[in-house]
């Protein structure tokens, strides 16, 4: 199999990390695609939970928002938002919290709040949403994002959600007993935290990616594992599954858009 984009590789590599018995709290965007590819390939029984309250959902197309009707239509059950955050997240039922990030540092701390000073921000981002508690109540955190110097920075502007803090046993020192970020999948590589320092370390380069490419698109000095591997290329099944999902999603959104337009012209 040849011909796949770095973004496709990212989604597929992330999907492979998910297991059939995982209970996954799904962030929108790249995490959502990875989780659904996992469900449609090797993890058919995975439980996908979106913060809108849908538990065990199996959407046929990717939702644009975390609360699309498709998520409820296909869910095992749909609960209220307070129940979602109390019983299911805080209750310790989530094995994997899957997050994206606007800004990320090498210890897996995430900023989605502001660029610049909090009181007088240069750019006001949407904020944390569910992330601050997903980051500490899920048993593990997976992060996925495309690499860029703007996104992967030495120092984030705001600690929206806590990863490994300053590294080492910082989580433990704060009394947080969950594992925190254990995996980062980018469009170029797979990263895992160093067992001691907790700094994200590249353990596998995607096909075609080089150490230089990884460093050039990352704002901190990148560490590479001595046992660096190459990520297996997407299988035919994986790639076909992802592309079908994206095609169904695009078609559905176009159909809806056309329908909406027709509706308002009729009106």
């Amino acid at each position, binding site marked *: 199999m040849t011909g796949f984009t770095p973004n496709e590789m990212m989604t597929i590599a992330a999907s492979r990390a998910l297991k059939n018995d995982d209970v996954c709290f799904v962030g929108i965007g790249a995490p959502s695609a990875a989780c659904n590819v996992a469900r449609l390939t090797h993890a058919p029984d995975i439980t996908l939970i979106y913060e809108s309250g849908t538990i065990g959902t199996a959407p046929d197309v990717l939702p644009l928002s975390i609360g699309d009707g498709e998520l*409820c239509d296909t869910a095992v059950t749909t609960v209220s938002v307070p129940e979602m955050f109390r019983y299911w997240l805080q209750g310790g039922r989530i094995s994997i919290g899957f997050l994206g990030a606007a800004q990320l540092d090498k210890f897996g701390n995430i900023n989605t709040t502001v660029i610049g000073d909090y009181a007088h921000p240069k750019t006001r981002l949407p904020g944390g949403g569910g992330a601050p508690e997903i980051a500490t109540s899920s048993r593990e955190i997976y992060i996925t994002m495309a690499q860029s110097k703007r996104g992967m920075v030495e120092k984030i502007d705001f600690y929206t959600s806590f990863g490994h803090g300053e590294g080492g046993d910082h989580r433990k020192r704060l009394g947080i007993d969950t594992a925190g970020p254990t995996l980062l999948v980018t469009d170029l590589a797979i990263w895992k935290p160093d067992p001691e320092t907790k700094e994200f370390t590249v353990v596998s380069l995607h096909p075609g990616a080089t150490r230089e490419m990884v460093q050039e698109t990352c704002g901190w000095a990148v560490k590479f594992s001595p046992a660096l591997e190459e990520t297996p290329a997407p299988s035919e099944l994986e790639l076909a599954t992802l592309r079908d999902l994206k095609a169904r999603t695009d078609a559905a959104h176009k159909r809806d858009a056309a329908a909406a337009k027709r509706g308002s012209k009729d009106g």
Partner: protein
Amino acid sequence: MAKFLPLAHAVAENLRDGDKVAFEGFTHLIPTAAAHEAIRQGFRNLTLIRMTPDLIYDQMVGMGMAKKLVFSYAGNPGVGLLRRVRDAVENGFPNALEIEEHSHAAMANAYEAGAAGLPCAVFRGYRGAELAKVNPNIKPITCPFTGEQLAAVPAVRPDVTFIHAQKANRRGDVLVEGIIGIQKEAVLAAKRAVVTVEEVVEDFDGLHPNLTILPRWTISAISIVPGGSHPSYAHGCYARDNAAYLEWDEIGADRDRFRAWMEENVMRAKPEDFAARVEGLRAGASLRSVA
């Protein structure tokens, strides 16, 4: 006790300048028609409360109605940023906007505490998160049995909450279904509550006993506004207008274009216009049948 009123009356009777108000809906069932009516009536100095401020709060902030925003995720869901909210926070346009920012868990717990009549919510949250440092309404509280330090936030108690729902019955009980979000708590936490509904049915006989129903004596007024949550959706009635959310990203980005759009689509529009806006989206309504 719920009164059936035209939307303009329901809003005029229940919203006042300076109120703390929640227009709630978690992606689903967003009470757009009620928000547009509030915009037409020109309220000022509002404290806008919502977990996920989206288009309607972007519009209200952009129209200069808000002095404060209490929220946990101020984004255009699935699209990006809220341009009018950004302009207010970053540039003080059209007026400075005070913000009180929380996580979803905190806001959900705060509404729950409001519904439960408590002064504060207690949960395990904000560990290592910087919001706890910039928001004085996040305080530590200690479990008297284990010594664990938990987080406390004040209960949310709006003066008035607006929601949109699928159905009311003739007595004024309201049924919410699908993604129910935080609506029940937002209504029960508030002093007054106004509900726009897709339709009124004779009764809820034959429906399952455990559905999400707000008894008529928890509601101040009900207005019948088919399509009233467009461009959001109403499970079982019509689909989400994703294109409108994408389009908003451009409209909201420009102050003049925003004003022109508001003039045409809100100021000169009526609650009755919402029905036509969802006509084409009815075929895409959720497949799963809802009683």
